[in-house]
Every structure is written in structure tokens, then in C-alpha cells.
């Protein structure tokens, strides 16, 4: 029984954090978000240099073949620095799909090396989301149709942009026609694949929500420590302290839940999906509370565009409802919890 990460996992996480601290400062993200695509090839290249795009790609295709547990720590950082969806969709979800395709080596050979090298963006679309993120500047779209997996080129889809309150998100309504030519996996195998994608998206988003919650907490604490009212820092008022403490508690008890979910995915535990939904709910609660408490502590500043807080609040609000909203994840938890003979209670935490 060891519920800690390996030294090199933590070291990699720390390296990514240092890197993003410099390369993904809020003012830079704001610039990128003003652009039409909302994406920066330059940043993507740098992320590739860090190895992020190659994380799940098998060595045979130029990757470093790491798994869900390595990703979860990275995802927390992606959340903390509000890195847009495209990286995770391409390097984690799309690669998972491609890796697990029954056959179709050609497709793997064509795309996995380019993804690993940071030279390709892949959009992943499933009906659980009404829209597809980053469909516009994707080089490849992997879409779901009746549980089948279809691979489409940009010229095979029609896109309609739908602006989100989270400026970092680029959502598109995708119109396309499934055909034998676009299908790369049938419904039978596809069903399992898409379930795996939804769970991994769930783990990724839980971890990002955790990171976002931590960022909003840090911003709230910084503001409270500096901003003075009635002659002293607002952070010295007990009500403000307790707002921030409540957020810290929520994060403290959401993180291990997220980590268990990632472990369960990495080891194909039977209850992995339930753990993922539990993680989504715990991390979502932490992020929503962090948003509410941090804006409250910011006062009127928190309601402005200038204060960085808004970037992270809006992203938390948006992500909490993607790849399954709270209704979806509560249903999955309830189906497990209230099933006859559910295995619960002391001693069953890791069964």
C-alpha cells in the first residue's frame, strides 16, 4: 500500500510547473485568446519540447509511453495554468483512441509520430458534448457515430463557431456525414473505446478543476493579503480567512479522490468509472466553491475583466459541465451506490 507518487513523477510535474509559470503567464494567455484560433503554434511547440505531446505515445512511434497516473499530475498543472483543451484532447484522448484501435496501423503510423512531435492537433467529438472543442484548427477529427469511431479530415466537415464564456474554449457545431470510408472502428469495439475516452476525459478534467481551484485560492489569498480596508489587509478579517480556509479543505479532500481515479484507470480497476465520476464531483465542487469564495474575497475587482481571476473562474464553470455534467456523473455514482449488494464501507476503499 503506497498512496504517494514516484520521485520522477513529481520531478516531471515540478519541471512542467516551472515551465508553464514562465511560458503560460496570464498576460500571454490573454494575447493568445485574442487570436482567431485562440491557439499558439509557438506554445504548442514548446509544450512538445517538454515532452507533453509525447506522453502517451508508444516508444515505437516516438513517444515516451507513460500512463494515466503520470498524466494526472500534469493535468493539475494544465488546470492551474489554464492551458486550453486542445493539448489534452490531442495528446491524451486522441492518442488513447489511436493506441487502442483494433488494427489500422496505418492511421497510427500516420498520426502518432506527428502528435508526439507536436506537429498535429486532433479534435475528439462525442455526443456527450453538444459541441466539439478546437474543431477549427484540428488536422484530424475523431468523431463518434452510433459508438463507431470515424476519422475525418478538416475538408470533410462543416463547422459553426459557438462562443463560450470561457474565452480559451473554441467550440464548434460539427456537421459531417459518416461513411464506410470515414469509419475506423465498428460499434462493438467503439463502445469500449469511447467509454475509455469519457473516463480519461473525466480524470483529466477532475485534475484540471483541482488545479483551477488551487489557482483561484492562490489568487484570492494574494489579493486578500495585499488589499487594505479599514486600515488593515482584508485577509486579516476572520470572515475572509474562513472563506479561503473552506476552499483549502475542499481541495485537500478532493485531490486524493482524483488520484485514486487515475490509478484505477491505469490499472483497469472494475470500479474505475465510478471513481472517475466521484472525482469529477469532488473536484467540481472544489472549483465552484473556489470561484465563489475567491470572487467574494476579491470584491469588485473580482468582477472585472482585468483581474486574472475571471480567466480561471470561467474555465472552471465551463469544464465542470463538459464530458458529462454533474447530472451525468451523479447518475453513475448512484447506479453503483444504490445497486443491490454494492460493496461499500470500511475495508473496501481499494477493492
Amino acid at each position: 500500500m503506497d498512496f504517494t507518487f514516484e520521485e520522477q513523477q513529481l520531478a516531471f510535474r515540478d519541471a512542467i510547473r516551472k515551465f508553464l509559470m514562465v511560458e503560460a503567464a496570464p498576460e500571454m494567455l490573454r494575447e493568445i485568446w485574442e487570436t482567431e484560433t485562440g491557439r499558439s503554434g509557438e506554445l504548442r511547440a514548446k509544450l512538445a519540447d517538454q515532452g507533453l505531446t509525447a506522453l502517451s505515445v508508444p516508444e515505437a512511434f516516438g513517444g515516451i509511453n507513460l500512463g494515466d497516473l503520470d498524466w494526472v499530475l500534469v493535468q493539475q498543472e494544465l488546470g492551474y495554468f489554464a492551458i486550453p483543451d486542445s493539448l489534452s484532447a490531442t495528446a491524451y484522448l486522441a492518442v488513447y483512441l489511436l493506441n487502442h484501435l483494433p488494427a489500422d496501423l496505418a492511421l497510427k503510423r500516420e498520426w502518432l509520430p506527428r502528435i508526439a512531435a507536436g506537429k498535429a492537433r486532433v479534435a475528439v467529438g462525442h455526443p456527450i458534448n453538444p459541441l466539439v472543442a478546437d474543431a477549427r484548427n484540428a488536422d484530424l477529427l475523431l468523431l463518434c457515430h452510433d459508438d463507431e469511431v470515424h476519422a475525418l479530415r478538416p475538408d470533410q466537415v462543416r463547422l459553426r463557431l459557438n462562443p463560450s464564456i470561457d474565452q480559451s474554449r473554441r467550440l464548434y457545431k460539427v456537421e459531417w456525414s459518416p461513411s464506410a470510408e470515414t469509419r475506423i472502428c465498428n460499434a462493438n469495439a467503439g463502445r469500449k473505446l469511447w467509454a475509455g475516452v469519457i473516463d480519461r476525459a473525466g480524470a483529466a478534467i477532475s485534475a484540471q478543476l483541482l488545479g483551477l481551484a488551487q489557482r483561484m485560492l492562490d489568487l484570492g489569498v494574494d489579493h486578500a493579503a495585499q488589499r487594505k480596508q479599514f486600515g488593515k489587509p482584508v485577509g486579516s478579517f476572520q470572515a475572509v480567512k474562513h472563506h479561503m480556509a473552506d476552499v483549502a479543505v475542499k481541495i485537500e479532500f478532493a485531490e486524493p479522490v482524483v488520484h485514486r481515479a487515475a490509478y484505477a484507470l491505469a490499472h483497469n480497476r472494475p470500479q474505475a468509472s465510478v471513481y472517475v465520476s466521484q472525482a469529477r464531483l469532488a473536484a467540481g465542487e472544489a472549483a465552484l466553491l473556489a470561484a465563489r469564495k475567491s470572487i467574494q474575497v476579491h470584491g469588485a475587482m473580482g468582477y472585472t475583466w482585468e483581474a486574472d481571476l475571471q480567466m480561471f473562474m470561467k474555465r472552471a464553470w465551463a469544464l465542470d459541465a463538459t464530458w458529462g455534467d454533474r447530472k451525468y456523473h451523479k447518475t453513475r455514482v448512484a447506479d453503483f451506490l444504490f445497486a443491490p449488494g454494492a460493496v461499500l464501507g470500511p475495508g473496501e476503499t481499494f477493492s
Partner: protein
Amino acid sequence: MRLEYTERQKQFRAEVREWLAANVPTEPLPSFDTKEGFELHRAWERKLSERGFSAVTWPKELGGRGCDLIEWLIFEEEYWRAGAPLRVNQNGVFLLAPTLMEYGTPEQKQRFLPRMATAEDIWAQGWSEPGAGSDMAAIRSKAIRQNGHYVINGQKTWSTRAVYADWLFGLFRSDPDSQRHHGLTFLLLPLNTPGITIRPIKQLNGLTGFAEIFFDDVKVPVENRLGDEGAGWNIAMATAGFERGLMLRSPARFQQTARQLVDLYLKHRDEADADPSIRDAVMKSWAGAEAYALATYRTACRLAKGGHIGAEASTNKIFWSELDLLMHETAMAILGARAELMPHAPDAGDVGHWLDGFLFAQAGPIYAGTNEIQRNIIAERMLGLPRA
């Protein structure tokens, strides 16, 4: 106790309902935080004023309808029920006007109120300063009297609607050596006075709902002073009382939202019940809006019998701001993945207004005195707990 409307009240309701049915724009106006929307809202206020509806509680001779508070509540109920536009001049009509009526000279009332009723003048407020938010007494902007004028230097911020408004009312330090609540004076000035620079502040939704105002030797004639020199604090507190009190948020607004939330829930019921907290929150929302309406009617009736607004100002502020959050968070939960779509997103359908309301609700517990300040006031003034 008699919880029934009089014939006169019923007739008034009928008149308002009929007039609104005939006059409310069929298409919602663009936000009044845009130049175009602002002027369209100004035109709407003028339209309202033709019937005295832009300021129903004012005396007729000043452009109102001479309504009592119950009639005001009736008007608000019909107004929100009809989905009529937001009130671009509410800072003037609901915050400044009551103060003007109490402290203004006859000349000032004649000069300002009729033009306010017809929205020829739209008013912004100048309370907060960068160092004086919750702690309003920390105001530093100076207004030094020099032969017949006050010369203003300093800065105001969070001035709602100031980007497009015509006039400003606010507090300035007329005695440079004074501390805290003393030596403050209440002034009224046109926002086009030379020396004024307005910097719009972009808010969460990307629009410029408020602004910073910089004063550089801005000259304001003495006759634009409301009340005595140095008496500004007490006068402003009266306004702040009104702001937090009865008229800032009429119950009808929240009853309308609660009703729409019930409809939204029923429309997505099967799906929504997958998260049992939603159904419970919808019930709490309706009950909360009803409770707020009942409490407001009770306060109105007490005032009619000569009572005064006390801590209700603070309890109201906390109650409606938290209710508004609950209702919009619940709507977001029902809408799920669609909740993040901007109102103008092609696939947003007709639910975009929930996002607008959700963002606006975030400000509720913060502005007009944070809810933390309100809780202190309740604990110290209403419950008599010792100050720290």
C-alpha cells in the same frame, strides 16, 4: 391584517398591465452597457415617463404617479412579469431621487427631478475610490471651495453606468484636514465638465458596466451641493440605506426568475432529476422568492404606518443576493454543457439569458456593501454584539 388588494390597487394593476402589453418592445433591447443599448433604454424611460411610469412613487408634479409603496410593488410585479427592459436610470430614480427629495432645495428638486423622470439626465454614482470600497469613509478625492465653486481633484471607481451617463452624484472631501466621516460634501455634477476623464472598466461579461472617473481641477458651482458642506456622510448614508433597502431589488424580479426556473426545470425534468439537488433547489428558489416578496410587503406596510427601515436593509441584501445566486447556479446545473454558451452563440437557443443572470448574480454579494459588512451590521446593530 388584510392580504387583499383594494379596488383602486386592482385598477392600477390593470392599467399598468394593459399599458405594458401595448408598449413593451417585442424584441429585447441590446444591453444598456453598450452605447446603442443605452440610448434605446433612455428612449424607453422617456416612453415610461409619458404615463408617469418612470418614477411611479414620485409626486405627479415632478413627473411621477404619486404611488405609495404597495402600488410601487404592484407596478414592479407587472413590469417584471411583462419582461420589460432593465431600468437604465435606476441609480437616479431609486438612489439619488429619495435623497434629493429629503435634502434638496426646492430649486434643486425642480431643476433635477423632472429631467430625471424623462431620462434627459441619466445619473451615475460616485461613491467608491480605489482605497475606499467597503470602507467608504476612506474617501480621499478633494473638493476645495474657491469663490463660488468646488474644485475637485481625485479619483472615483466602480461608477455604474458612468461610461454613458450625463450626471454624477457623489461624496468628496471638502475639508482637506478632516478624517473619516467628517468634512465630506455631497455634490452633483455633469459628467461632461472639463477636467473629467472617464476610463471604462470591462466587467466579467466583457461589457463596460462601470468606470473609473478621474478629476483634474474640475469646477462645480456651489449650488450643485446637496445639503450642507461637510454633511455629506449622513446624506449619503440615507441613500445607501435606500440602496440596500427596499427599492434596489424589488421582489418581482426574483419571483419572475423563480417562475422561469420552475419552467426550465419542468422542461428538462427527467434529465434534471438525475441530480436530486436540482429539484430541491428549485423548490427553495420559489419559496425564497415568495418569502422575499412577503417580507417586502410587510416592510412596506410598516413604513406606511410610520415605521422606519432598520436592519431590513442588511437582511434584505444578504437574502436576495444569495437567492439570486442559488437560482442561477441551479439553472446552470440544469443546462449542463449548454450553460457556457454566450447568448449570441448560434446553438445557444433561448437559454443565453441564464448565463447573463449567472454572471450578474456573482456581483450581488459584493456590491452595495459586501455581505460580510452586512453581517457585521446585523450582528452589531440588530443583535447588539460587541464591535471587534
